[in-house]
C-alpha cells in the first residue's frame, strides 16, 4: 500500500494538549479514511509543540462499491399490458436511469413469484489522492481542543470558518511523495478569502537551530525522511527521543537520581523540540524558606525540578531549554536571576505574614468571598466549626480532646487565605496555614497537621497524599476538618443549584466529593466500625449549616447530593480497577448501606472481588437466580416460612441450606460476623446448587396462596444474608 504522510505545522500548542491531539489525529484519520472506503494501517503519530505528524499505509484507491436499491413490486410497476406504471417510472426517475436499466428480482428467495424492481448502483472507487483532501479537512475540523481560537481561517468543507488550537502555518500532505492538495483560506468578511496555507512537501526545522542555517524550509518525500531530516534540523519529532535526551541530561546534571519529578518530565518533553537540560543553584540566603515555598516557586512558576545541593533540599534546580545548550552559562544566569527575584518576594511575604498570629486573621476572612450566594470565608469558617461540633458532640464521633483540636483547626483552616504568601501563590493554601501555625508553636501538632492537609485527599489512589504524612498518626482530627470543608462546599453549591453537569465542574465538586469518600473509605478509624461516621448524617448536618441560605428544599438537595456522593464512590472504586458490576453489587448492599458506611462498602467490594474470582461460575448462576428472585418477589407478598408447608424436595433442600448457613454464621466469632466478608461469601456461594434446583423444580407462584407466600418467604430468607454483603443480581456474566 502507498504511504500517507501528514504533518500539520502550527504555532506553539500548549504542551498538555499534545499527546491527546496526536491520539485524536490517529484515530480520526483512521475513521475518516474508513468512512471514505479507504483502508489504512499501521498509522504512527508523533508530535512536538509545533507539529503533529501522522504517517502510515493507506489504500491506493477506494474499493468499487455496489449498492442495492429496492423499488416497488413488479406487479405495481407494470400494468396488465406490461407497460410501465407511474410507480415504476417514478422509481427509475428517482434513481436517475431509464426503466429498462432496472432489474427485477425476488426479495425473498422462498417466494420467487413476488418480484420487485431493483437498481444496483455501481460506484467505481476513486484514487486516494482524490479522496484524501476531504479526509484531511474532516480530520482537522474534528480535532477537539480544550480551547479553540479564531485565526481568521476558512476551509472549503461547507462549514467555513475554521477555528483551531493555534494558527496553522504549514501542512505537509503526501501520498508516496506526491502532494495531496489541501488549502486553508483566510476568512475575509466572514467569507472565503485568499489562500493562507497550501499543502506541500515542505517542512521546517527548529526555529533557531542549527545555528546559521535555521528557518529554511526543506522538502521531504516520506515519513522516514521527515524524521531523519528533522533530526538533522534539531527537531526530535518522536516524544520518546526527547524523553531519552532529557533523561540523559538529568542524569548528568543531577549527580543523583531524582525520586520525584512532580510530573514535570512529561511537560518538559512537550514544551520543546530539542531538549537540553541545564542546572542552576539557589543562593544560601533562601535556605530559611520552607521547602514547600521553594518548590512552589521552582516547580509551579518556573517549571524547574528542585535538586538537592550541598545537603540542602531544593538548593539547586534543573531546567529544560529548547536548544543545544552551547551558551548554557548565560542562560542559567538568566534563570537564576528570575528565581532569585521570585524568592525575594516570597521571603518578604514570609516575614510579613509572621508578624501577626494566624488566629488574628480569622476576622479578616469577612472580606474574602467564598461564593456570592454562600457568603464569606468567615461564614464558611463558622459553619465548619459548627459542623465539627456536630461530629463531636452531636454524633459522638470525636473524643473530647479530638473535638477540641478539630474545632481549633476548623477555625484556623481558612485564615491563611488572607496572607500575602497565599495571595501570591494560591497553590500554597492550607500549606502556609500549617507552616505558620507550627512556627507559632501551636498547642497541638494535630491542629497544624489538619490545617496543612485539609484540602486533601485530591486523587483517588489509596497511597496518595496525605497517606504517608498521616501514617502513624490518628487521622481523626484531620479527617473531621477535611470532611467538614468538602461537605460544606458541596452542600452550599448544591443548595443554590450549582451542580456539575457534563464536563463542566467549575467549582471542583467532583473532586471534593471524591475527597469526602476517600476520607471515609481510607482514613477514618478504618479498623473500628462503631465510631465511623454515617455519610448520610454528615450530609444532613452540612446542609443544616446553611439554614436559610439554601435556595431549594433541603430534602431535594440532600437526595441529589447523596446520589452524587454515591456516584463518586463508584468512580473511586472503578478507578482502583474494580469491575463496574462488582462495584454496583457492593454499593447495592444494605444494613449498613454504602451511604451509611462507605468503608464497610469498600471491605465488601474487596471480599466480593476475591471470592468471585475463585468461584466465577457459582456467581454467574447466583446472579441469574437473584435476578429471577427479584422479579418474582415483586409479584406477591411473602410470609414467614412455615416448614410444614414445604412439600417439594428442592424447596426443603433450600430451606435446610439457608438455616444451616444462618446457624453457622451465628456460631462464628464476632470478628467474623463484622468483617469476615470473604468467609461469609464463600459459604453463601454454596447456596448456588440449592437455589438452582429450587428454581428448576419448584413453581414459586403456586395456585394455593399459602404455599405461594411461603415460597416467597423462603426466597426472601435465602436472599437476605447476601444483601448484607452485595446485591448479587447486579453481577454480569
Amino acid at each position, binding site marked *: 500500500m502507498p504511504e500517507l504522510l501528514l504533518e500539520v505545522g502550527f*504555532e*506553539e500548542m*500548549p*504542551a498538555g494538549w499534545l499527546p491527546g491531539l496526536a491520539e485524536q489525529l490517529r484515530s480520526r484519520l483512521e475513521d475518516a479514511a474508513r468512512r471514505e472506503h479507504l483502508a489504512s494501517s499501521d498509522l504512527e503519530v508523533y508530535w512536538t*509543540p509545533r507539529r503533529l505528524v501522522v504517517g502510515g499505509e493507506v489504500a491506493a484507491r477506494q474499493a468499487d462499491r455496489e449498492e442495492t436499491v429496492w423499488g416497488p413490486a413488479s406487479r405495481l410497476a407494470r400494468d396488465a399490458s406490461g407497460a410501465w406504471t407511474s410507480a415504476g417510472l417514478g422509481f427509475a426517475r428517482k434513481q436517475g436511469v431509464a426503466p429498462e436499466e432496472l432489474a427485477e428480482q425476488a426479495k425473498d428467495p422462498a417466494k420467487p413469484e413476488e418480484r420487485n424492481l431493483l437498481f444496483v448502483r455501481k460506484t467505481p472507487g476513486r484514487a486516494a489522492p482524490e479522496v484524501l483532501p476531504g479526509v484531511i479537512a474532516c480530520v482537522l475540523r474534528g480535532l477537539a481542543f480544550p*480551547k479553540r*481560537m*479564531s*485565526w*481568521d481561517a476558512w476551509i472549503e468543507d461547507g462549514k467555513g470558518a475554521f477555528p483551531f488550537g*493555534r*494558527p496553522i*502555518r504549514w501542512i505537509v500532505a503526501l501520498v508516496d511523495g506526491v502532494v495531496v492538495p489541501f488549502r486553508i483560506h483566510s*476568512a475575509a*468578511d*466572514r467569507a472565503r478569502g485568499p489562500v*493562507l496555507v497550501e499543502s506541500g512537501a515542505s517542512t521546517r526545522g527548529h*526555529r*533557531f*537551530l542549527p*545555528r546559521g542555517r*535555521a*528557518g529554511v524550509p526543506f522538502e521531504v518525500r516520506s515519513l522516514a525522511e521527515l524524521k531523519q531530516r528533522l533530526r538533522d534540523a534539531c527537531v526530535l519529532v518522536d516524544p520518546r527521543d526527547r524523553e531519552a535526551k532529557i533523561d540523559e541530561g538529568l542524569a548528568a546534571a543531577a549527580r543523583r537520581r531524582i525520586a520525584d519529578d512532580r510530573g514535570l518530565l512529561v511537560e518538559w518533553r512537550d*514544551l*520543546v523540540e530539542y531538549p537540553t537540560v541545564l542546572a542552576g543553584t539557589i543562593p544560601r540566603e533562601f535556605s530559611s524558606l520552607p521547602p514547600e515555598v521553594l518548590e512552589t516557586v521552582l516547580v509551579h512558576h*518556573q517549571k*524547574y525540578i528542585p535538586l538537592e545541593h550541598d545537603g540542602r533540599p531544593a538548593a539547586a534546580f534543573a*531546567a529544560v*531549554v*529548547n*536548544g543545544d545548550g*552551547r*551558551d548554557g552559562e*548565560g*542562560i542559567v*544566569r*538568566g*534563570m537564576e*536571576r*528570575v*528565581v*532569585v*527575584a521570585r524568592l*525575594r*518576594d516570597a521571603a*518578604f511575604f514570609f516575614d510579613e505574614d509572621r508578624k501577626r498570629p494566624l488566629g488574628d486573621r480569622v476576622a479578616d476572612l*469577612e*472580606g*474574602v*468571598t467564598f461564593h*456570592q450566594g454562600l457568603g*464569606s470565608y468567615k461564614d464558611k469558617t463558622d459553619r465548619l466549626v459548627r459542623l465539627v461540633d456536630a461530629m463531636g458532640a452531636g454524633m459522638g464521633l470525636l473524643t473530647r480532646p479530638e473535638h477540641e483540636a478539630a474545632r481549633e483547626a476548623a477555625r484556623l483552616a481558612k485564615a491563611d487565605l488572607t496572607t500575602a504568601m497565599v495571595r501570591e501563590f494560591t497553590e500554597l493554601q492550607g500549606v502556609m496555614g500549617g507552616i505558620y501555625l507550627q512556627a507559632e508553636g501551636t498547642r497541638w501538632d494535630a491542629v497544624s497537621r489538619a490545617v496543612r492537609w485539609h484540602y486533601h485527599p485530591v486523587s483517588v489512589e489509596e497511597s496518595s497524599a496525605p497517606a504517608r504524612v498521616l501514617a502513624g498518626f490518628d487521622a481523626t482530627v484531620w479527617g473531621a476538618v477535611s470532611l467538614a470543608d468538602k461537605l460544606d462546599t458541596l452542600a452550599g453549591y448544591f443548595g443554590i443549584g450549582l451542580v456539575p453537569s457534563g464536563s463542566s465542574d467549575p467549582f471542583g465538586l467532583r473532586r471534593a466529593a471524591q475527597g469526602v469518600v476517600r476520607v471515609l473509605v481510607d482514613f477514618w478509624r478504618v479498623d473500628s466500625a462503631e465510631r465511623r461516621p454515617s455519610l448520610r448524617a454528615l450530609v444532613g448536618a452540612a446542609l443544616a449549616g446553611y439554614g436559610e441560605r439554601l435556595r431549594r428544599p433541603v430534602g431535594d438537595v440532600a437526595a441529589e447530593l447523596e446520589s452524587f456522593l454515591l456516584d463518586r464512590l463508584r468512580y473511586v472504586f472503578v478507578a482502583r480497577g474494580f469491575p463496574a458490576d462488582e462495584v454496583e453489587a457492593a454499593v447495592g448492599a444494605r444494613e449498613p448501606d454504602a451511604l451509611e458506611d462507605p468503608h464497610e462498602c469498600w471491605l465488601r467490594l474487596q471480599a466480593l472481588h476475591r471470592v468471585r474470582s475463585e468461584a466465577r461460575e457459582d456467581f454467574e448462576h447466583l446472579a441469574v437466580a437473584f435476578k429471577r428472585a427479584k422479579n418474582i418477589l415483586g409479584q406477591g407478598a411473602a410470609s414467614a416460612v412455615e416448614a410444614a408447608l414445604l412439600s417439594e424436595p428442592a424447596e426443603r433442600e433450600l430451606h435446610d441450606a439457608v438455616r444451616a448457613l444462618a446457624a453457622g454464621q451465628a456460631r462464628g466469632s464476632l470478628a467474623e460476623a463484622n468483617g469476615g466478608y470473604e468467609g461469609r461469601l464463600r459459604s453463601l456461594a454454596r447456596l448456588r446448587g440449592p437455589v438452582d434446583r429450587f428454581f428448576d423444580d419448584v413453581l414459586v407462584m403456586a395456585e394455593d396462596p399459602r404455599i405461594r407466600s411461603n415460597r416467597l418467604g423462603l426466597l426472601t430468607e435465602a436472599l437476605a444474608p447476601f444483601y448484607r454483603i452485595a446485591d448479587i443480581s447486579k453481577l454480569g456474566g
Partner: protein
Amino acid sequence: MNLQDLVFALERYWAERGCLVHQPWDSEVGAGTMHPETFLRVLGPRPWKVAYVQPSRRPADGRYGENPNRLYKHLQLQVLLKPAPADVQDQYLASLVALGIDPAAHDVRFEEDNWESPTLGAWGIGWQVLLDGQEITQFTYLQQAGGVDLAPVSAELTYGLERIAMYLQDVEDVYKLRWSAERLYGEVRREEEFQLSRYSFELADVDLHRRLFEDGLAEGWRTLGPPGDRSVLAAYEWCLKASHAFNVLDARGALSASERAGMILGIRKLACAVAERYLAPEASAKEARA
C-alpha cells in the same frame, strides 16, 4: 542598551514594518490594551498597525521604591497588528534580534498564557514569551474586546520594557537600570514610586474614590449617546477613570471581594456598551470620515 535606546530600537523596528508610532494615552491606565488605539481599533473590519509606549499603573503592585522587581508604574511597549500577519511570530523574534538578542544563544520560548481583562470584557489566546525563564512579552491573538467577537483577529505584543532592559543590562535591581547614558532609572522614578505607593496605600481618600468611581461610571453612561452621535471616546475615557479609581480602592484594601466583583462588572458593562456603540454603522461611518 539603555532604556531609551531600547524604546527607540523597538519603535524604529515596528515603524519600519508599517506601524504608526503613537504616544501614550494621557490618563491613567493599567495596561497598553486600554489605550483607545488598541481597545477601539481592534473592533470592526478596518486594518490598523500601531506601536506606542504606555506607562501602566498598577497601584496594588506599588512597593515604595524598595522592591527591585515590582513597580506601581511600569512601561509597556504595545504593538497592535490588525489583522495578525501570518509571520507575526517571526516578526516578533526579529525584533529581539534588533535588540541584540540572538535567539539561538538563549532559550526563547512561547508558553501558553491566555490574556484576559474582565474589566474590559476582553480576552485572547496566546503565550508569554520567556527569555531564559524571564517573561518579557505577552503575545496575544485578541478574540474579544468589549464583549464583541473580533474579526479580523489582531495580534497584540506587549513588551515589558523594564524586564527586557534589566536582562540586556544584566542588572538585578530595576532602579539600577540605565535609562540614558547619564541617568539611572532610580534617579528618574524612585521618588515617584515612593510617593504614589504612599498615596495609594495610605493617603488615598476612600470615600472620594468611591465617589470618583460612581461618578465616573455615571458620567460615562450619561455621555454615551445613541449610536452615531460621536460620544464613545468621551464615554470610554470615563470608563478608564472609573477603572483607575477602582484600582486605587483595591490597593487601599477598601473593597470586599463581592464589592470588588460588582465594580468590575460595572466597568465591564460600560466598556461593552462603548464597544457596541463604536461598532454601530452610523458611528463607524462618521468616525471613518473624521
